[in-house]
């Protein structure tokens, strides 16, 4: 993919981070607002597709460190499974943190309320785990599929940084 014009690239550089912050917001507030790990992770993973479209393939491939994304994916899944296993004193996937005080342990008032961020126990923790996993997984899928396509087409070297 060839890079787009300087206008698109500048807007992308600014707007990319708003998208990342928005996705992180959706993941962290998963137990209060509609959304959660899967949805927020997908929003963050669009960042890499955005970069591929505006900056072109060469820059995206040089920017992405696959080890980091792979580590994020594995860490997320392990966090999710560990949060499930820690409740095994009662049952598998028991919410052992809820209403205990401390991390994610405060109670919410019954009925309609504006939401307490530090509530809901392992639900928030699992949201973050799943969010990390989806960020890593979808980004890796986009990256490796693009590289695989380029390998098959075997185009010449791409130009980077020039306007069309």
């Amino acid at each position: 993919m060839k890079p787009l014009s300087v206008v698109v690239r500048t807007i992308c550089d600014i707007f990319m981070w708003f998208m990342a912050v928005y996705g992180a917001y959706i993941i962290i507030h998963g137990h209060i607002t509609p959304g959660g790990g899967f949805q927020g992770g997908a929003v963050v993973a669009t960042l890499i597709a955005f970069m591929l479209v505006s900056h072109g393939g060469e820059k995206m491939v040089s920017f992405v460190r696959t080890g980091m994304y792979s580590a994020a994916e594995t860490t997320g899944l392990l966090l999710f499974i560990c949060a499930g296993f820690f409740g095994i004193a009662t049952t598998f996937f028991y919410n052992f943190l809820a209403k205990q005080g401390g991390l994610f342990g405060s109670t919410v008032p019954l009925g309609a309320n504006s939401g307490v961020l530090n509530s809901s126990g392992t639900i928030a923790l699992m949201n973050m785990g799943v969010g990390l996993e989806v960020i890593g997984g979808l980004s890796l899928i986009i990256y490796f599929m693009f590289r695989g396509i380029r390998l098959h087409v075997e185009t010449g070297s791409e130009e980077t940084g020039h306007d069309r």
Partner: protein
Amino acid sequence: MKKKVLFMIAILVVAGTLWGALERVHPFGEPARAPMDDYYLQNAQEERAVNNIVTAIVFDYRGFDTLGEAAVLFTAVCSVLALFRKGGGHQ
């Protein structure tokens, strides 16, 4: 010919099943009794200290199902990595 007869039988079976199901649909605006839904709506906020009932079901009451979904995503990523690995299959 044999294939056509088999297709006709399959269509008849599916249509009969759907027709039978349609005849038993409850009238519009009068949902069937759902004690499980009522239990979640009334007790989730008190039991799990969470405002979002959908998240409470997905990550707590039905957490095992979400573990399966996460495993499916992990498997998909692994298969994509295996498919598009360096070197390709044509060498």
